[in-house]
């Protein structure tokens, strides 16, 4: 508090002040470079507010004619996200197990696990979807597999970290009882990572619900297909209906996941 009121005269030493100005100048320079060289037609920029207003005026009022189709696509989106999350959760377990330093069988499996996690995590769901649409053709299968591939890295990383942070003492105690490796995992490790397991599964489900709304834009199923169709046919009033439906879905997903979190944890 005091520091805040005294700021005008004694907050920084001259050297600090200089450094701050330096960072500031550097930032300004970078922004100027980006602004000067980016490939933008400025006439469009000045025109943008008009265009946006125009587009918006064409969106109201929302047109509910195809509401039944929209709702069934919404349900398909929910199913897609749920099934994909469930399968990803199952597949993430062995990955987490070999990616955790204290459970992985050997150095080779450790690196295999880490490789799976990094490649899964650093490729976005949409890029995965592009690939799987090319492989499986347009449709929900590509969407489900894309979401799975992205989720395995997310879930596997967080679960693997949870495994690495467990208390090793019960593990040792059960080893001393003569329990087999699998039973030690079952009794000493699984109970310790259970809360994290549920927390990350719910979190990822919530994220996947959002992500699955856009899969359709690259042909991978769900509500995005209808959105793309409405945009392509300039049916802006239907577009706004779909957008409202998506907001409702996302909000509902947040409510459900916070309810589950409270219930289970």
């Amino acid at each position, binding site marked *: 508090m005091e520091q805040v009121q005294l700021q005008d005269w004694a907050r920084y030493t001259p050297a600090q002040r200089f450094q701050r100005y330096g960072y500031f100048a550097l930032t300004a320079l970078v922004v100027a470079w980006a602004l000067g060289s*980016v490939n933008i037609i400025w006439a469009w920029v000045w025109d943008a507010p008009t265009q946006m207003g125009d587009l918006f005026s064409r969106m109201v009022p929302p047109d509910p004619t195809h509401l039944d189709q929209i709702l069934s696509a919404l349900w398909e989106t929910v199913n897609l996200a749920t099934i994909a999350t469930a399968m990803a959760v199952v597949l993430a377990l062995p990955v987490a197990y070999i990616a955790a330093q204290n459970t992985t069988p050997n150095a080779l499996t450790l690196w295999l696990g880490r490789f799976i996690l990094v490649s899964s995590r650093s490729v976005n769901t949409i890029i995965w979807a592009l690939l799987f649409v090319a492989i499986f053709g347009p449709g929900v299968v590509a969407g489900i597999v894309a979401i799975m591939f992205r989720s395995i890295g997310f879930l596997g990383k967080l679960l693997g970290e949870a495994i690495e942070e467990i208390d090793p003492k019960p593990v040792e105690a059960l080893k001393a009882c003569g329990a087999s490796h699998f039973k030690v995992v079952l009794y000493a490790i699984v109970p310790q990572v259970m809360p994290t397991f549920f927390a990350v599964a719910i979190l990822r489900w919530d994220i996947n619900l959002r992500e699955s709304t856009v899969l359709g834009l690259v042909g991978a199923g769900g509500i995005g297909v209808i959105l793309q169709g409405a*945009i392509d046919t300039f049916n802006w009033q239907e577009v706004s209906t779909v957008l409202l439906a998506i907001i409702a879905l996302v909000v509902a997903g947040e409510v459900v996941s916070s309810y589950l979190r409270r219930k289970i944890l």
Partner: protein
Amino acid sequence: MSTARDTWRKQPFIANPVLRYGLYAAIAVYIVTTFATLPIDWDRMVQGLSRAGRIFGGAFPPSFQRSELLIDGFMESLKIAILATVGGVLLSIPIAFMAARNIAPLSIYYFGRAVIIIARSFHPVIVAIIFVKAVGFGPFAGILTLIVYSIGFVAKLLAEKIEEIDPGPVEAMRAAGAPFLSTLVYAVFPQIMQRQIGLGIYQLDSNLRASAVVGIVGAGGIGATLANAFGRYDYDFALAITMVIVGAILISEAVSGAIRKRIA
């Protein structure tokens, strides 16, 4: 009572057996019906294996022959990310103040909250496709998209931060009869600046990731290059682009993590 006890069952998570088995049954029914009703084209899926073989065959080795295109695309993504971060972080400040209960009057508070909720609800790809339609293909649509994306994240966290600031200096200033704006500048800004810079660096990282994606629907940057390569079945070039994207993301994650650790 004690001598003959030889049964023990773990108490189930849901004590009521009707509810418990009902839940199991509901889950089973859900899984079966979902798999049965999802529009899955099994024939097309079976072809997938041979197609996958062809795609991966075509993708290796990755081709960096058109590296000029690749570099242009990447630089454009970088510029989009930088400009969107600056725009988003600056715009987040007024929106966050509007959405902070301890600063804004109720009606403005609701408006600010609504802006944040809408910005957060839509995946950037949806926002991008709308902007592409409104302002045309290219990086401008990308920048607008990621500004919205940044607002959804930065303004929300900033508003939470403002709501928990120390009210002392604010009240002191108000009591001294300072006008609203100078109250903000002298009593509130100093308390949130640090946080705002950290958020900005984090957001630059997020925006770089997202800029690779929004390009796929036409909003400029390396994503557009990738979508084009995919569309033309140039899988070796697509792999090269993906590798660059992954590399850039890993580097950016490491750098932003290191910077945030230093200023924290």
